[in-house]
C-alpha cells in the first residue's frame, strides 16, 4: 500500500515514534494474558526476540495491505501480501497473498490503483476467515513494512471490528529507516541553489537507489516482496556486519 499522495510523503515520517523504551517481551506476556481471541492469544504467546538480538538472527516478515482508501475508520483492507525473510535471505516459499471482501464499499478510485475489482472480491473470503492464518504467519517474527502506519492502523481497525481486540507489535519501517539514512543529506544553501532535493523515500525511488529492479506497484504480494528486498539492501549497505541489535532499527 504505497499510493500515498505526494504531500503525505514529503513530510518526513515522525522519527520520534521510534520508540525504544517499550519492553516488548513484557508487553507480549501481558497481552498474552489479557487477550481473549485464541489465535491472538497464541500470537502473543510466541513472544518477541529480545532487543539485543543481532539483526542477523531475527526472523522477519514483510507485510503489505491494499485498502479501499486511506482512512482506517471508513476504509478497509482488500488484500494482504506477506513474505518471510531474514537479513540474508527472502524465502518466496513462505509467501502468502489473500484477496479479501472489504466490509466497506470498494471505491472506484482505489480500484484504479490496486486493480482488485468488485467481481474479484465478490467471491473472496472475509477478513475474519483469514485472520487466524494471518496471525499464525506473523507470530515469532518482526514485521517489516514501508510506511508501517497503514499496516498497523488498518490491522488494528480490522481486529477491533471483528474481535473487538487490539494488536501491538514492534515493526521495522523501511521508509523511516530510509529517512534516517538520508538525514545525513543536509539541505544546504548550496544544494538548494543547485536545485538538489532531499532524496525521495518513496518505495520505488528507494529501490532505484539500491540498484533494485523496477517492480509494478500496488499488488500486496509484490509490494511486500519489494519492501523485503529494500530492507535487505538497506542492511547490506548500512549494517553489513548484521551485528547491530534489532532494537536499533525497530520501532
Amino acid at each position, binding site marked *: 500500500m504505497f499510493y500515498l499522495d505526494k504531500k503525505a510523503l514529503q513530510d518526513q515520517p515522525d522519527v520520534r515514534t521510534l520508540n525504544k523504551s517499550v519492553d516488548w517481551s513484557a508487553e507480549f506476556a501481558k497481552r498474552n494474558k489479557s487477550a481473549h481471541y485464541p489465535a491472538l492469544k497464541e500470537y502473543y504467546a510466541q513472544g518477541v526476540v529480545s532487543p539485543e538480538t543481532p539483526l542477523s538472527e531475527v526472523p522477519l516478515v514483510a507485510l503489505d495491505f491494499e485498502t479501499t482508501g486511506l482512512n482506517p475508520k471508513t476504509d478497509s483492507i482488500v488484500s494482504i501480501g506477506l513474505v518471510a525473510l531474514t537479513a540474508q*535471505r527472502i524465502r518466496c516459499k513462505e509467501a502468502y497473498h489473500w484477496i479479501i471482501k472489504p466490509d466497506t464499499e470498494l471505491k472506484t478510485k482505489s480500484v484504479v490503483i490496486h486493480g482488485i475489482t468488485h467481481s474479484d472480491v465478490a467471491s473472496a473470503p472475509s477478513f475474519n476467515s483469514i485472520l487466524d492464518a494471518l496471525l499464525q504467519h506473523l507470530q515469532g517474527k518482526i514485521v517489516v513494512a514501508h510506511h508501517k502506519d497503514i499496516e498497523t492502523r488498518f490491522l488494528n481497525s480490522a481486529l477491533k471490528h471483528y474481535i473487538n481486540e487490539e494488536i501491538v507489535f514492534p515493526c521495522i519501517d523501511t521508509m523511516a529507516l530510509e529517512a534516517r539514512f538520508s538525514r545525513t543529506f543536509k539541505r544546504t544553501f548550496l544544494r538548494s541553489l543547485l536545485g538538489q532535493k532531499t532524496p525521495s523515500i518513496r518505495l520505488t525511488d528507494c529501490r532505484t537507489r539500491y540498484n533494485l529492479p523496477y517492480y509494478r506497484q500496488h499488488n500486496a504480494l509484490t509490494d511486500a516482496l519489494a519492501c523485503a528486498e529494500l530492507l*535487505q539492501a538497506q542492511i*547490506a549497505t548500512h549494517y*553489513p556486519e548484521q551485528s547491530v541489535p534489532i532494537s536499533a532499527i525497530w520501532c
Partner: protein
Amino acid sequence: MAIEQVEVTDFFHRHKPFSDLAEQELSQLASGIEIAYYKAGSPILTFGQDNNQWFVIRSGAVEVFRRDGELYNRLGEGNFFGELAIMRNRPVRFPVVALEDTLVYLIDAETFNNLFDSNEQFADFVEVEDRSRLRDSNADRKENDSLLTAKVEKLIGQLPLILPPNTTVQEAAVRMTEEGVSSVLISNDQLSVNDDADDEELVIGIVTDVDIRSRLVAQGLKLSSPVTDIMTSQLTSVQSHQYVFEAMMLMLKHKVTHLPVLKKSQPIGLISHQDILRYESQNSLFVVKSIFNALNVDELAALKGEVQTCFSRMVHEDANSQMIGSAMAVIGRSFKQRLLELAEQEFGPPPIPYCFLALGSMARDEQLIVTDQDNALVLDNRFDPQIHDEYFDALANFVCDGLDRCGYTYCKGGIMATNKKWRQPLKVWEQYFSQWIDKPTPETLLNSAIFFDLDGVWGKKVWADSLNRLIRKKAYKNARFLACLARNALLRTPPLGFFKDFVMETDGRQTNSINMKRRGTAPIADLIRVHALSVGAKGRNSFARLQGVIESKILPPGRGADLRDALEFIAMVRIRHQAFDIDMQRVPDNDIEPEYLSDFERKNLKDAFQILSDAQKFMKYRYQPGRHL
C-alpha cells in the same frame, strides 16, 4: 502450496533457459526461490565453499574469477552461476564477487537437478560442458533441411559403365547403347601412383554422347579410334560422402555437366547436372548463369542485388556456413571469369599465357557478402615487361575496376593484380614463396599470409596447383617458418565474452561492437592454416584443412572437433547478421553490436571464443621457436 510472485515469474519469462519451461514448471520454480542482495564488492561465492544453490542474477552484475585471480567472466541480468558446484557436487572452484549492487534469485539444488534431468532444452542451455552445447546448437540447425544436407550417394542410381582406355569408340558406343547411358568412364587400373597423384586419378576420363558427335563424327575420325582420343581427361570427381551442394559447386566451378562419383578411388556412379537440379535450390545457379550471360560490366554490376538476395535466401533456408561460403566463392569466381572473358574481348587474346589467382577467403571457399578483392596474376616465364606488361596492366585494371563495381571493393593492402609486384611470371612467384618460407620473418609474413590461400581462377590453373605444391612441400614441418606464421596468427584474439550490451575483452575493457571477422573467423582460419601447413594437409577450405589436421593427430583429442564447431558457429553468427542487415536494407558489415545478439548466441559465442582462445594457446606452445615438430 506456495504463492507465485508475478514479478519473479515475469522475469523468468523474459530469460532463457527459463522461458523454455512449461507454464507450470516456471511458476513452480518462481514460487520456490530465495532472494539475496549483495553490495558491490562483496563476495557471493568463495573458493572452496560448499554451494547448494543456483544463482540467477535479477539485477546488477557479478564477476567470476579463476582460482589464480584472473577474470573469467562478467555476468549481468538474466545470467547465472553456481551450477558447476551443484552438478559436480564439489566445492566452489570459481569465486564470484558482486561488481555492482546485485539482487540474485536462488534456486535450490534439488529443483535445479530436477529441471536439468527432466528438461532437455533447459539442460542444453545450462550445460557446463560448453563444447557439447556448441555442437548441439550447430547440429539442431543442420537437421532442419534434408535437401541441403543430402549426400551425393543419395543421387546415385545404377553403377557407371566403365571401360578400359584401349576400347574403341565404336565398342564404347555399343556398350552405351546396351546399357542405356549417355556417358562412360574410362579407367586405367594399371595407373602408376606417382608423388602427387590423388587417388581419384584411377579414373582417367569420361566420354559422353556429345563427345562422340563433336569430337569423333564432326572431326571425321575413325570409329576404331581409341576412346582416349575423344575423352575429357583431367576429370573432376566427387566423393560419395560429399554433400550434394559440393557436387553442384564443383560443376559450376569447372563448368562440367557430369561428375563421376567415387568411393575412395572406386567409381561407383555418375551424376549429372539434372540430378542435382532436383536437389538444390537454384539460387546460386541462377546468379552464376546471369553472370555468364552479362554482356558488359554494367550488366555485371547490376547483379549485385541478386547476389545479396541469393545470400540471404540461403541463410533463411538454413544452409550451413560451408554451403554459403562456397556458393559465394563460386559467384565471386564467376564474376572474375566473366570479367576476364570481357577483358580478352576488349584487349584481344593474351600475348603470353597467364593465370589469374584468387587469394584469401575466395580461395578458401569461405567468401561472404562483405569482402574485398584479393587477387594476383601469374604470367608465363617468357614475360618481358617491356613487351607484355601494357596488356596485363590493362587487363588487371579492367578486372579490378569491374570487381569493385560488382561489390568487391579494392583491397586496401594493394593485394591486387593491378599492383606490379603481384603481376609477375611464375618463376618470380616461386622466388616469392621460397623467400617467405625459407627466410621467414614475422614482418615479411605479416602481409603475405593471404598468399598461402591461393586458387587458380582463369587461364593456366595448373600454375596455381604447382605453387600450392611448392608451398606444401616447403612448409611441411618447417619449424622456423611455422613459428613466424603462428606468431602472426596470434595477433588477432577473440574477446572474453559479453556483458550487458558490451563486448568484454580479456582485460575487462568493454567495447560497443565486435568485428566478427577480425576477432572470430579470421583468427580461426589463420590458426587452421598454420596447422594445415605443418602437416602438409591438402585443401584450402578451413573445414577441409581441419579434417586433415585432425587426421594427422597433432591436436589433443577432441579439440579439432571443438574448433570446427566454434568456426561454424562464429561464421553463422556473422552470416546471419549480414543477412539481417540485407533484409533490413542496411549495408551489411562484419561489426555486430551485442544488443542484436540473442541470449543463445551470446552464450554459444562465449564458448566458441573460449575454444579459439584455448586453441591459440596450444598453437603458441606447439610452434614456439626452436621446438622440434
